[in-house]
């Protein structure tokens, strides 16, 4: 048995942690499980990557099977990390089409959560660039799924949070790039309305995201910095600049749990004020940034999840459909700023249509907030969830550790179809996670 948790370090669960090193050993693990799920690199915040009784760690599967430099098509094992792909193929002129805010996620985890990046509004999610998946189902079968072969299972696996089976391999398309640099433009917005307008205006930009000062109140509510970006061409680099500068390991590490004292409304307020001022000063012009700080600002601080202290933290990420989003997001931000213990990190971004049956994205705005786990936080987030549901929105399963069944059911209308597909693949219900148990498995007698 091993105590494991997601990136938010809440909840902590005791399960058997299995670490197969061959596909045959994955078979054995599935055959032996009485409720287990695959786990990639543990970057989901909540309980998605934790099995009810067994958790099947997949990071040993880190081989690239084949790569075609003419087309950018790559076949690889599910445990390969995006960081590994970027380090290996970036210098050869290829990057993943979609990357989340950390590069330390596995391909299996990126498919299972159909992760979105700063380009979702125009280029879609990770699953869109997946052509084929080799899947081991709960009944022990190995099937190849794609848009042509078993298309239903394919659509259920993208964004299916590991619940259709264990992803062994995938075939993806990589994006040809000339450099490892992004031409970035920063826009400052004085309030939420201006922020949303700036994101709308940035619809044609490949990458766009807004960082919100979630401590600001009143007429400053929602004041933000909007970051737009395009891949820089080789001709745009200054002379002598390296086309691809390698990612560095985190220089700064948080080795111990900080006492939760360090995170209080004063320190958070000071941080937000400083961040906003420094960003606003850079606003206007455009400049070149390496992909590493651009896409993965938090990867510079290893183990930063520890700054929230021993009790862990929750991320709350919702998406609100376009219509009426201003009022709802304004209401949420207002409550958060009045509460005062919100995160350093409040991110607002536009999403487009999702591709998987259970994919989180829908056209609209997504807001992500962090909260330390405290006595009153659950009730507070339940209140926020009511606003989300009333607006026709939903919460991101890769970040969730606490939403109610009702919130989930209201947000994911394809659930019934997903359950049917799951039942056909895994009649005896071997594949179960703490998340599925919490949100939709039939309650065990």
């Amino acid at each position: 048995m091993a105590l494991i948790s997601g990136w938010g370090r809440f909840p902590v669960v005791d399960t058997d942690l299995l670490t197969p090193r061959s596909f045959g050993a994955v078979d054995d693990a599935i055959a032996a499980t009485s409720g287990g799920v695959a786990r990639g690199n543990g970057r989901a915040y909540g309980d998605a990557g934790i099995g009810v009784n067994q958790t099947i760690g997949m990071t040993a599967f880190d081989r690239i099977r084949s790569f075609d430099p003419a087309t950018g098509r790559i076949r690889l094992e599910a445990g390969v990390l995006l960081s590994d792909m970027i380090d290996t193929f970036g210098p050869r002129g290829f990057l993943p089409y979609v990357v989340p805010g950390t590069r330390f996620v596995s391909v299996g985890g990126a498919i299972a959560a159909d992760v979105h990046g700063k380009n979702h509004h125009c280029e879609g999610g990770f699953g869109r660039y997946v052509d084929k998946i080799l899947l081991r189902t709960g009944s022990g079968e190995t099937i190849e799924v794609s848009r042509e072969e078993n298309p239903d299972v394919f659509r259920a696996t993208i964004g299916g949070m590991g619940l259709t089976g264990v992803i062994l391999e995938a075939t993806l398309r990589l994006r040809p790039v000339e450099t490892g640099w992004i031409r970035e433009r920063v826009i400052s917005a004085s309030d939420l309305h201006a922020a949303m307008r700036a994101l709308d205006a940035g619809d044609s930009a490949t990458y766009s995201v807004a960082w919100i000062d979630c401590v600001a109140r009143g007429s400053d509510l929602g004041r933000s910095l909007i970051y737009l970006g395009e891949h820089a061409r080789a001709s745009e680099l200054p002379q002598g600049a390296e086309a691809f500068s390698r990612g560095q390991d985190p220089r700064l590490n948080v080795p111990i749990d900080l006492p939760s004292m360090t995170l209080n409304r004063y320190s958070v307020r000071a941080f937000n004020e400083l961040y906003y001022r420094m960003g606003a000063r850079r606003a206007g012009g455009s400049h070149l940034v390496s992909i590493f700080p651009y896409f993965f600002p938090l990867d510079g601080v290893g183990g930063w999840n520890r700054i929230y202290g021993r009790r862990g933290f929750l991320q709350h990420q919702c998406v609100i459909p376009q219509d009426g989003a201003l009022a709802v997001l304004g209401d949420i931000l207002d409550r958060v700023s009045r509460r005062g213990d919100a995160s350093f990190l409040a991110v607002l971004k536009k999403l487009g249509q999702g591709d998987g049956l259970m994919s989180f994205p829908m056209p609209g705005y997504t807001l992500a907030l962090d909260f330390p786990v405290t006595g009153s936080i659950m009730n507070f987030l339940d209140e926020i969830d009511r606003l989300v549901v009333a607006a026709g929105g939903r919460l991101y399963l890769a970040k969730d550790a606490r939403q109610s069944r009702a919130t989930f059911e209201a947000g994911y209308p394809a659930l019934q179809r997903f359950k049917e597909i799951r039942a056909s693949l895994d009649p005896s219900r071997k594949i179960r996670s703490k998340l599925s148990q919490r949100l939709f498995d039939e309650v065990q007698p």
Partner: protein
Amino acid sequence: MNSRKIVLVLGGSSDIGRATARSFAKAGWDVQLAGRDAAALEPDAADLHARYGISASTHRFDVLDTASFDGFVAGLAALPDVVTSIVGLLGSQETAERDLDHATTIMRSNYEGPALILGLFAEKFLARGSGSIVGVSSVAGDRGRASNYVYGSAKAGFSAFLSGLRARASRGGVHVGTVKPGFVRTKMTEGMKLIGPLTVEAQVVGDAIFGAVERRTDVVYVSGKWRLVMLIIKALPEAVFKKLKF
């Protein structure tokens, strides 16, 4: 004609073996992967080719089958520029205390086999007048401990073999390196209690082996902390050491 340099990795299917192959392939070397089950090495060879565009071949090699060594060396399509042995078996000290077969297997896997095969390559390299040989030994060979002296003594023998070979081979232009990892997070140590600050990932060892070849280093402690730890442990008088729970 292929002008890329070639590294032969003995023990290619181990975590450190795979990491070592990646370190060399990343720098543009061709790789010969050798292990007991050549077919099982195919995915690793494909991985190296897909990542780095180099060519990688697989070879059957069993460290206990010393009779096959001459044939193994002769059967390689090309004599490598570098050979490194990652082969080793931790085994179980407790079992080895009662079971001679197990003790013998540990001793042969960590000393006899690796020493003999590297010795063979040394002859070839000396005849050619160039080459680098790197043996992966262990800090466990620096002083026998109650908890793993069967393994440790075999590693000690291997370290001594390498240092003698080094003295002789250096006169013929051949480099011999000894790499001593401490705790490494691999399948061999899975589930063991490792001391965090003294533990490294397999890739760190792979890079250290590559670095030893590049810089023609004699002895490398993979984590510098171990050099200090072992310095102290080696300096302890036997009367004190035997009382330590270690």
